[in-house]
């Protein structure tokens, strides 16, 4: 798999910036109260917190599936809370998401599922075919190109979902409990994949409540609790204020 790193002038200074963001669903309690943090290009974070702390909601705000009830969100240097609707698809294409429930389309083959982001972006058929089969081979699914999701195991579905999230070379990769359905060994494999992407500049955020995973790998942590977010550096790294540019340690892999 070749992820060719193109390091010229940076496309943007900040990947994500939340300023006093609050979120509540209609007539419900506040899910997020006053959340502020910044993600710089190339950073790698865990997003942790107990179930129901709002991890998925926070991710939704980041992949533009939800608008905040208060505060300001800047993505790729653009204020998305004030952005026009027609500008959002362009921003969404820079974001790869691995949904907790995968959200694969059951009537399409693995190959077609992974091809979706490229098709949407209007890529040429031949380009799509080359890229997709290469990536699926890389995640170990070269034998299941034409398989439909209902015939795949959870682990395989997850790899399809991950392939779909990364096929468009996203600048920001968001994964919601990507190791929830697989054992630790497979989980580490998945993390190694994310790490590869991170090395070529993709900003990665992995939401998990799996403490064993967090303690295995030393990464800065965005910790959500009671609607607020705090940033924690791994024990050996230097703590910084709110903003981090962490390079993941490979020690645990």
């Amino acid at each position, binding site marked *: 798999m070749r992820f060719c790193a193109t390091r010229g002038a940076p496309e943007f200074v900040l990947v994500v910036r939340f300023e006093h963001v609050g979120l509540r669903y209609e007539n419900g309690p506040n899910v997020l109260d006053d959340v502020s943090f910044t993600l710089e290009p190339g950073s790698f974070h865990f997003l942790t917190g107990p179930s129901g702390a709002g991890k998925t909601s926070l991710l939704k705000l980041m*992949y*533009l*599936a*939800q*608008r905040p009830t208060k505060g300001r969100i800047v993505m790729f240097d653009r204020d998305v809370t004030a952005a026009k*609707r*027609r500008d959002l*698809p*362009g*921003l*969404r*294409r820079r*974001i790869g*998401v691995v949904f907790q429930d995968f*959200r694969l*389309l059951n*009537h*399409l*083959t693995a*190959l*077609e599922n992974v*091809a*979706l*982001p490229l*098709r*949407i*972006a209007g890529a040429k*058929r031949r380009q*799509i*075919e080359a890229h997709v*089969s290469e990536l699926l081979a890389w995640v170990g699914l070269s034998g299941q*190109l*034409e398989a439909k999701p209902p015939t795949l195991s959870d682990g395989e579905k997850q790899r399809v979902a991950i392939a*779909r999230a990364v096929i468009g070379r996203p600048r920001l990769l968001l994964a919601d409990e990507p190791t929830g359905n697989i054992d630790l060994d497979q989980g580490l494999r998945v993390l190694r994949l994310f790490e590869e992407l991170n090395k070529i500049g993709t900003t990665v955020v992995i939401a998990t409540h799996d403490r064993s995973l967090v303690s295995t790998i030393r990464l800065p942590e965005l910790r959500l609790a009671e609607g607020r977010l705090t940033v924690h550096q791994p024990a050996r790294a230097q703590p910084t204020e709110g903003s981090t540019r962490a390079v993941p340690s490979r020690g645990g892999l």
Partner: protein
Amino acid sequence: MSLARSELQLHRDPTRRMVGFLIGAMVYLAALAVTGGLMVGTTINRWSDDLRGNLTVQLPGVTAAGAAEATGRIDTVVSTLLETQGVAGARALPRRELLSLLERWLGRGNIPDDLPIPALIDVTLEPGVRIDLDDLQRRLAREVPGARISDNGIVLDRLVRLAHSVQAAALAIVLLVGLAAVAIITFVTRAGLAMHHETIELLHLIGARNNYIARQFVRHVVGVALVGGILGLLAAAGTILGLARVAADIDVFRWPTISLADPQLVALLTLPLVAAVIAMVTARLTVAGALRRLP
């Protein structure tokens, strides 16, 4: 290696056949209404041409003795006619001419002086002007009791009016059918949006523009409308040909004729296209409205 043509796979939706049938039925009805309207239109033109030529006004018969007295009445009618807009000329046929007409039947010199002979006034109309004959008839009868316009003209005039009403009804049917098509397409597009909302949401989240999603719906309904429309049109052509065969046996003066060779019937060929355009616009607007509700 194969890539699906579209993610939504709308062609597998169970509503497809029903919508195709409904669009076909609508095109069928619209085709018959258009044919009826066009046929009536052609007939009106022919009838109007007849009306444009001239009319005959008839006054009650008088005997030779009363002929002098009748002259005044004839003059009144002629002057009334000449005052009427659209009348180019009015000429009373001299009694002599009338007698010579009758002599053909009764033989020269066989017409008794006490035989009442109606006075006839030949009216020339200005080309291109339509006259309300019922109104003219009333006015003439007021001036000279018993004066009447020859039946032919009046009946044709009423028929032309009836024909116009039929045309208006045909137009109303076509409009109604068009509105029903809009309703059907809106309904089926909404059903499709609901059925595939998960797929649509996903496409939306990974950066699909509204156009990308709308295009799949548009392509689907346009295809269904075209196929249904063409089948409906073929069925209508069958019906029209059948009616034409039955009508061909009737030989009545100025009976409207039906023929698919009529160049105006080319308009029918556009009906499936019109159905497709209606489907395209309706689906696009419906999808755009629904996607506006997504984040």
